[in-house]
């Protein structure tokens, strides 16, 4: 646990917030705390407290299990999407950074085209092509997070490939698989992990935005964005419908960003800092 001892209080609190959020969600979902998220069990728009800890929505569904399901959906979608991004961006970035040449140019130009689209416009475009739903949300997150990550991985790969130990390996006659697995990836893993945390927070925001616009997760399934969207109709009469998932969204994004900053300080050498 040397990493934990080296981390400052901000990084630690970010990690703790994130862990608590995930733990509560997993426990809440697995043990079905608060009952069935889709069952209409109570009065409509009941305020928090008593039998329904976070109140009920416009159909009389208890908000607590819906919140558990919502956090679960959002985190799961974003995490899967970011893992896909990480794999693709690493392949593209290393190809562009290590091999360079025309392959690198093609990758860079493609990525720049993607980069030039405004986030939410790109997401709506994807939803229009794929059709609204979880697939559209995941595809959007991947397409939105891949440009930055590819560029950062490429920049890091360029730096690492110029180091003497890579040259030595080439002189020794090592093939590209060995150089990739033994030299490049271990020295890029820090950069990839740091970019992954940032991509995760972007992913959560994209899910929220897309579901809020109605192109993301479809009812009756809940997600943080979907909960906020459904609750926004009753903002004045039942503000808790928006406030609770809103706060969770903010906490999740903040915690991930703060943790990502700490991870960067710990993993990335100082001279690479300007790349981020």
């Amino acid at each position: 646990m040397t990493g934990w001892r080296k981390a400052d209080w901000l990084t630690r609190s970010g990690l703790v917030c994130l862990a608590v959020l995930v733990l509560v969600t997993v426990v809440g979902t697995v043990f079905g705390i608060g009952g069935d998220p889709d069952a209409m069990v109570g009065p409509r728009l009941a305020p928090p407290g008593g039998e329904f800890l976070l109140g009920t929505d416009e159909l009389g569904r208890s908000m607590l299990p819906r919140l558990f399901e919502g956090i679960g959906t959002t985190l799961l979608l974003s995490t899967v999407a970011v893992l896909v991004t990480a794999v693709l961006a690493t392949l593209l970035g290393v190809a562009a950074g290590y091999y360079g040449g025309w392959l690198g140019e093609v990758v860079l130009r493609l990525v720049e085209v993607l980069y030039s689209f405004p986030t939410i416009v790109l997401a709506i475009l994807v939803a229009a092509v794929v059709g609204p739903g979880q697939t559209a949300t995941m595809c959007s997150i991947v397409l939105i997070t891949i440009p930055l990550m590819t560029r950062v991985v490429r920049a890091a790969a360029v730096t690492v490939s110029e180091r003497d130990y890579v040259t030595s390996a080439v002189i020794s006659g090592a093939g590209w698989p060995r150089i990739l697995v033994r030299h490049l990836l271990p020295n890029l893993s820090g950069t990839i992990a740091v970019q992954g945390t940032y991509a995760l927070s972007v992913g959560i925001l994209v899910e929220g935005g897309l579901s809020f616009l109605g192109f993301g997760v479809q009812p009756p399934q809940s997600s943080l964005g979907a909960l906020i969207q459904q609750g926004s109709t009753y903002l004045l009469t039942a503000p808790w419908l928006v406030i609770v998932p809103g706060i969770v969204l903010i906490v999740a994004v903040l915690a991930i960003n703060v943790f990502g900053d700490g991870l960067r300080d710990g993993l990335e050498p100082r001279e690479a800092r300007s790349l981020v």
Partner: protein
Amino acid sequence: MILELDDVGVTFTGGPPWARTKVYAMKGVSLTLAEGEILGLVGESGSGKTTTSTVALGLRRPTSGSALFEGKPFPKRRKALAGRMQAVLQHPQWSLNPRMRVGHCVAEPLVVLGGTTKDEVTERVLATLGQVGLDASFAQRYPHQLSGGQRQRVSIARALVTRPPFVVFDEAVSALDVSVQAQILNLVKDLRAEFSFAALFISHDIGAVRYVADRVAVMRHGEVVETAPSAVFFGTPEHEYSRQLVEAL
């Protein structure tokens, strides 16, 4: 001959097609290196020393002229040269992969070469570490736990583990303290006496070159201005520039 460079030129082009700029990194460089000989290559920064080393190692194809290693042109597939040539490079802090233990670093050329069992590799690695003056416990350490001189010793061990007939030392001692430099230079001399490899010893430090080299070549602006046996060179340098270098010693 281990290495023959014949009238080698290397040109770097830059800029857009309508305003091409050309930099001549090497112009008509001819050098030969016999088995077991150490050729010192001196010259100021930007004189083309490192470009020469990349050509000698087959990492860069010359724009003009020919480069022969052991009498043959460099093969297309790098693997064919595995174990035949090695290099000790400039930066002690980046010469070793920070995520690999020293033992694995030194073993790499052997593993790439193949044909040895795991036990043989371990044995050879420990033996080679011993020959560069590091005990077996170093094999388990990571590069950040080593000093600059120790890292350069590890680099030398990695270069010699396959007993190559040709080694390039590219500014191998320049980043080290003077006392450590002397140790490493002595080590290079001792190891050469033991394994009789040929070496291209590149340095801007003419004192270091004088200490290890059998012959000296001086480069300036991409050209070799003088090549002579060490004794002759340091006694009666012919070229004006060589004379300045020797006088500054």
